[in-house]
């Protein structure tokens, strides 16, 4: 099976003298569903950031989608990011844009024709059950609804990899269930690799997953 992520002796840090992730080795198969867990401050989000190139490795190698991130140029990084969907706990929606335009963002970046992008947005809004909210702005929606918009945006361009940082952290049960179903659907139907950083793995999930746990700067697989 193809490896979508390969980390070799990977160390991550924000400053010169403090290492958060220390010489870890792991790989993730294409099409797999992965949970990354760990205590607060253990480095889960740091690891996720490194996977889309927001944080360069301090040491070692990190290859995502065939791109070596420790030496990737800006254009290579942009190329990789165009094939990744990202979901954050704080949604990261552009507040001055309508939710339709927010969802359309990755489509336009990937060069979709506007009419095609509009059709895709309509489908996604129905998919995340927000078609009745079309044209509204993020701040006019509840937290759960905003996260569903962020989820639709992450799925819009059929990415090879979805990275989600505590996507259901502060959400109501309905929105949480919907987010998990959407992630499950993307993984099962589109064979998208899904990596979720979370404190709690949902019990209701109907998908085989890999569980990586971070503790004291190292990472190990939980069976």
């Amino acid at each position, binding site marked *: 099976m193809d490896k979508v992520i390969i980390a070799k002796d990977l160390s991550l840090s924000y400053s010169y003298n403090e290492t958060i992730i220390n010489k870890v080795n792991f790989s993730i198969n294409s099409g797999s569903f992965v949970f990354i867990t760990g205590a607060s401050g253990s480095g889960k989000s740091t690891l996720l950031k490194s996977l889309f190139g*927001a944080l360069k490795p301090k040491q070692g190698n990190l290859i995502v989608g065939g791109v070596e991130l420790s030496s990737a140029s800006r254009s290579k990084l*942009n190329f990789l990011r165009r094939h990744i969907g*990202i979901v954050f706990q704080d949604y990261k929606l552009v507040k001055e844009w309508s939710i339709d335009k927010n969802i359309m963002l990755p489509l336009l970046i990937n060069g979709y024709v506007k009419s095609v992008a509009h059709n895709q947005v309509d489908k996604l809004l129905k998919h995340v059950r927000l078609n009745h909210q079309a044209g509204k702005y993020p701040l006019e929606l509840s937290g759960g609804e905003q996260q569903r918009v962020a989820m639709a*945006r992450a799925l819009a361009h059929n990415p090879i990899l979805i990275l989600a940082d505590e996507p259901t952290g502060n959400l109501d049960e309905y929105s949480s269930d919907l987010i998990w179903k959407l992630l499950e659907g993307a993984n099962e139907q589109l064979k998208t690799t899904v990596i979720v950083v979370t404190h709690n793995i949902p019990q209701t999930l109907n998908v085989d997953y890999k569980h990586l746990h971070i503790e004291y700067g190292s990472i190990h697989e939980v069976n």
Partner: protein
Amino acid sequence: MKSIKNHLSLVIALLSILFSMQIFLITDRSIDAYKKNLADNYSVIVVSQKRLSNSDIMGINKIISNVEELSPDTIIKRFNSDIQSVNLELLKLTLPKFYKLNLAYYPSPKELKKLTSNLLHNPSISKVEDFSYSHDTTYKLLLLFKDVVSIFAVVVLVVTVLLIFKELRIWQYKHNERMSIMGLFGAAVWLRSAVLFRLAIVDALIASFLAFGIFMYISSSEWILQQFNTIGIEIVIFNPLEDFLIIIGVAISISTLLASLIVLGHKEEV
């Protein structure tokens, strides 16, 4: 309302730069026109012991545009009653020759001093009257006026640049989040900053057209034209094509420079 507010601060800053720039241009043109006017009415008187040809005198300094020999008849007429005509003719021959020199432009005191010295260098020329006292006063007054306007323009420019830098910080704050989010999805730098450049160019165009309207109004104002007529000069206050091209060029350059500084100063935040 929010959209107008978004544009207003940069438009006002750009407009004040364009306004001070055009006022400086008008002042410069007025001074040039006034200097030409002065040059037309200004002349240097030269006294020579021998008759000199026009080409001899004009060859002394390039600034001399025209030479006119002054007739001694008016002076001699005063003696007409007491002196015989034969003696008058003799007197005419012995009298020095007077020449009036017109200049190509109104010279600076330094240039005038050089001209006087060049003229006196000629052995035939015994005296040069350049009216330097009144000339210097007028010239210094013109320079003072130009300096005051230049200082005013520079002060406006400095204050406006400070305002623009403040605006830059606001823009940086406002656009940082959107640019970071676009960056997360792999948008190239030009795409991330397209909104910013569009906004900058729209603001530059708004400021340019406002400046165009203001100066078209000023250039057709009866009161303004009357002021120029009073001092006897005629200038182009605002050239709708050339000046507008300068204005639009300056406005677009400043606003795109502002947008470029924001793009260069952008740090990705995740």
